[in-house]
């Protein structure tokens, strides 16, 4: 088999891959290929037909397909090579990439690889809901694909578990299509999606949201017939005597996204246990030289606008990497206190400005986020509120970093 040599191979033609390709091209890198598994580019945005995308980037509210088309148009105009209907099955630490397509096996060798494979949804099996195994239990994104791409309605009497944004958006979508969405149950004591979606997807359609509740039984043989819901205590243990039965033919699970890193692992990329994505430096380079990651495969984002920015930032670093053959070593580790779930990047060089992305673990009011090095606060951001549903981003100026000492990100509640 002939090995095709490329400067950059981008794995995944969703919003992250598309934005990375365009910015690489802007920086003069022309020998690029995007490999996409689906028949079309656009990634998950193809099925996100609701509006609200692009507010920060384009100053207008677009649907997912419109947002991604703006990037696809440019990719086509610039003649950036894309190969669709092709699945990457292996990457080595030496950046050899094997893909399968209708034409057979393809092999690439890249100077640099961009990992933009996105996420998968957490499934029923992963959260161990007891009961039978009837049809009618769907992940929110799967139901979204059925309805918005394949013209197949998934059910009539619907219960939703998990208050993630996709779940709430599907509550509205299914209501518009004539389904009776009875309730959304959330195990945590706070919603996991954005407040605007609670308003415009649930409250607008009188769909109740029950916090501190979970499903403790699934009933039905061939098709789902009903579920049992229980209140949970602070440790998420169902409280006996609080069971309530609901009849339904459909259960939608919106219980979290997990970065899709099988290929990253094959390449030997070190993952972060907290994000389930790669450990990266300020250049979005992983533990394997020449392999970079961004978008939802790196960390689950709340807004696609931030995914595009992250991909462009990656592309700028990658362009430097390709022209210089090397990037500055990143020896400064970034740690967090218990209030913050993670940061991206996890390490920096101190020689470059960078943007820290993070999420808080629980809702907080009137707090400040302090970035500390050698006991000196190098940046403070005051927040009226901070919620786990929203990613927080903080810019750090390189001039503030004066040593190779660890950087700590802590929350101070006033």
């Amino acid at each position, binding site marked *: 088999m002939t090995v095709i040599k490329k400067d950059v191979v981008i794995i995944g033609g969703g919003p992250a891959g598309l934005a990375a390709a365009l910015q690489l091209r802007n920086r003069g890198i022309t020998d690029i290929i995007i490999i996409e598994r689906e*028949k079309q580019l656009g990634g998950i945005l*193809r099925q996100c*037909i*609701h*509006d*609200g995308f692009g*507010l920060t980037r384009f100053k207008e*509210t*677009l*649907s997912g*397909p*419109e947002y991604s*088309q703006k990037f696809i148009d440019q990719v086509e105009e610039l003649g950036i090579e894309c190969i669709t209907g092709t699945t990457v099955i292996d990457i080595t630490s030496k950046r050899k990439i094997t893909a399968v397509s209708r034409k057979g096996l393809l092999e690439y060798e890249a100077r640099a690889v961009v990992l933009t494979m996105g996420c998968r949804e957490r499934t029923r099996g992963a959260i161990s809901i007891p009961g039978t195994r009837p049809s009618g239990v769907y992940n929110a994104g799967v139901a979204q694909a059925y*309805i*918005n*791409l*394949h*013209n197949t309605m998934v059910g009539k009497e619907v219960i939703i578990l998990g208050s993630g944004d996709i779940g709430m958006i599907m509550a509205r*979508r299914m209501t*518009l*299509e004539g389904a009776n969405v009875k309730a959304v149950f959330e195990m945590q004591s706070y919603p996991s999606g*954005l*407040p*605007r979606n*609670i*308003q*415009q997807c649930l*409250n*607008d359609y009188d769909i109740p949201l029950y916090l501190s509740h979970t499903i403790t039984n699934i009933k039905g043989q061939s098709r789902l017939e009903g579920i049992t819901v229980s209140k949970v205590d602070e440790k998420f243990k169902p409280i006996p005597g609080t069971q309530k039965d609901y009849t339904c033919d459909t259960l939608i699970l919106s219980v979290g996204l997990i970065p899709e890193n099988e290929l990253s692992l094959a390449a030997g990329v070190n993952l972060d246990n907290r994000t389930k994505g790669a450990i990266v430096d300020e250049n979005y380079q992983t533990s394997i030289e020449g392999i970079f990651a961004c978008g939802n495969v790196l960390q689950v984002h*709340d*807004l696609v606008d931030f995914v595009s920015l992250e991909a462009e930032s990656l592309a700028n670093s990658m362009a430097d990497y390709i022209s210089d053959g090397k990037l500055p070593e990143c020896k400064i580790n970034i740690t967090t206190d218990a209030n913050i779930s993670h940061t991206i990047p996890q390490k920096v060089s101190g020689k470059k400005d960078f943007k820290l992305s993070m999420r808080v673990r629980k809702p907080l009011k009137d707090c400040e986020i302090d970035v500390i090095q050698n006991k000196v606060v190098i940046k403070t951001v005051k927040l009226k*509120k901070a919620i786990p549903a*929203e990613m927080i981003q903080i810019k750090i100026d390189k001039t503030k970093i004066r040593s190779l000492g660890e950087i700590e990100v802590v929350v101070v509640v006033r």
Partner: protein
Amino acid sequence: MIKKYTCIVCPNGCEIEAFIEGTTIFKIDGATCSKGKEYVKQEIANPQRNIATSVYVDGGDLPLASVRLSKAIPKDRIFDVMNEIKKVKLTAPVKIKQIVIENVLNLGSDVIATKIIDRIV
């Protein structure tokens, strides 16, 4: 009377409080931008929403084209507009921003396509 609102204009989702007596608004608190104030005034007067759904497409590479409204419509007309959209069938090709229904139900808003559907031959 104090009424609480969650602004839906942007992902910030500001929690806004309005002090109202009858139809008079005395004060709007908690909005980080002017759009939030406008949103609450609109919510009090006549709540408006946009909707997104799909229409059938004949002869396309996908069975559905996604659509949305060019501007928001009164919230209580959402299902009326859904019924109008359900009656439509397009023929591929479909372009983004193509008008699917002009001035739907005289509400001053167009139903527009948001996805490219290529014709398959």
